[in-house]
């Protein structure tokens, strides 16, 4: 049994709370224990670094300080939280000025930048393993033709070495294959969904997320799979922002695990684009389909 410290982040406690429940359920199934960071705070996302770099560093440092107390590796499923926290830890470890600034500002908390930060794909690959995942599927999800969508911040973090290819990542492809889904090749794995512009300029999100939906359809997909709560929401919102496009359901990676392990995804009612057709097509493995 492995334990990880866990940083859900703001989205997973509000607009994507069903992602939090989904990943807890799936990781519990595999015997991974999550210990939520005690009194964690917002990572600052894109807003803090655009306004004031020192403030952004302090916000990420606070969560790193909490994580370091446990000595466990830290799981951050939200791409923004992952990017900010991972980049923050490396910067604290490598830059004396920043280390001094954040320790002074946050005292009596102390932080060294030693924590290992993992995203959900890395967590599945490293702590559960592909063989175990392949062996654990109880339902046939072969009807799923998935395009894996990674977005910007999973691999493209400046000054941070990526565990996957930065332009053509494949970690999620491997996991989906292991679960029994068909994974389709496409070129939009790491394109931008429009990020936070959905509030200030929804036409921008309509354009960028709409392009991703269009390309998913052209690739022949009936499912888009992502790990980032903002990407999921923006793509899901195309049902309103782009009525001209076909509706392709946008699942979190852990929901595909739910389908393969349990035959249904508990959070399906929270999807803006209906997931009913996909869920209806899942069958128990070795069962009599007639």
């Amino acid at each position, binding site marked *: 049994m492995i334990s990880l410290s866990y940083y859900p982040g*703001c*989205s997973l*406690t*509000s*607009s*994507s*709370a*069903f992602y939090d429940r989904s990943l807890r359920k799936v990781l519990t199934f595999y015997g991974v224990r999550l210990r939520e960071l005690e*009194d*964690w*705070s*917002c990572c*600052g*996302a*894109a*807003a*803090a*670094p*655009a*306004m*004031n*770099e*020192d*403030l952004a560093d*302090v*916000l990420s440092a*606070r969560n790193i300080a909490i994580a370091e107390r446990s000595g466990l590796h830290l799981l951050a499923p939200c791409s923004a939280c992952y990017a900010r926290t991972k980049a923050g830890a490396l910067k604290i470890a490598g830059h004396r000025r920043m280390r001094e600034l954040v320790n002074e*500002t*946050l005292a009596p908390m102390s932080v060294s930048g030693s924590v290992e930060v993992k995203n959900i794909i890395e967590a599945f690959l490293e702590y559960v393993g592909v063989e175990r995942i392949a062996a654990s599927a109880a339902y046939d999800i072969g009807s799923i033709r998935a395009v894996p969508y990674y977005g*910007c911040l999973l691999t*493209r*973090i*400046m*000054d941070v070495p990526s565990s996957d290819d*930065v*332009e053509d990542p494949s970690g999620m492809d491997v996991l989906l294959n292991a679960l029994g889904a068909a994974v389709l090749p496409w070129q939009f794995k*790491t*394109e*931008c969904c*429009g*990020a*936070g*512009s959905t*509030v*200030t*300029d*929804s036409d*921008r999100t309509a354009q*960028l997320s709409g392009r991703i939906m269009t390309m998913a359809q052209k690739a022949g997909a009936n499912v888009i799979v992502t790990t980032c709560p903002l990407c999921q*929401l923006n793509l899901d*919102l195309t049902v*309103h*922002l782009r009525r001209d496009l076909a509706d392709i359901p946008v699942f979190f990676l852990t929901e595909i695990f739910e389908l393969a392990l349990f035959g249904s995804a508990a959070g399906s*009612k*929270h*999807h*803006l684009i209906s997931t009913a057709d996909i869920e209806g097509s899942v069958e128990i493995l070795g069962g009599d389909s007639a």
Partner: protein
Amino acid sequence: MPHPSFLDEIETRSGVTVSECYQCCRCTNGCPVARDMGIVPHRVIGHILNGQRDKVLASTSPWKCLQCATCSLRCPNGIDIAHVFETLRQLAIESGLAVKNDVWHFDHLIIDSVARHGRLCELATIIRYRLSKKEFLKDAAMGLDMMKKGRIGLSSHNVRDRKRLGTVIRDMRERRDT
């Protein structure tokens, strides 16, 4: 009027060696929003090299950038262009040259929420933004559907240590803003 010191100002503030740029355009080619930028990314960098301070700081480009960092990844000279754009936002505001934009305003509301609660309260922040813009009905159908499907968090989650964190955030903002 060119400001020859502008290049120094950008390099010192951002820590990025902009002067290595040889205008290959790879940043612009990869940029998902270049078509909406008044000045496309490689030209922004070119203007920095030529000391065109006012032109760059008054442009819409830093505010159109989504920080996807495709430009930075693909730059053959390792120039972190996305980070330079963050620096440009800060300098544009500080110099009073920034064009009117909603991005800065919304970012402030996000950090306000974090200063108050320790976490982002999505609904309150979006409502504050809509009220300030007098956009009472913008995307209302979309908002209703999100509400119905439980995609908008109604409760705010307060961090226990929020008072101390709030003081830290306000102090750091004042230090920079004044």
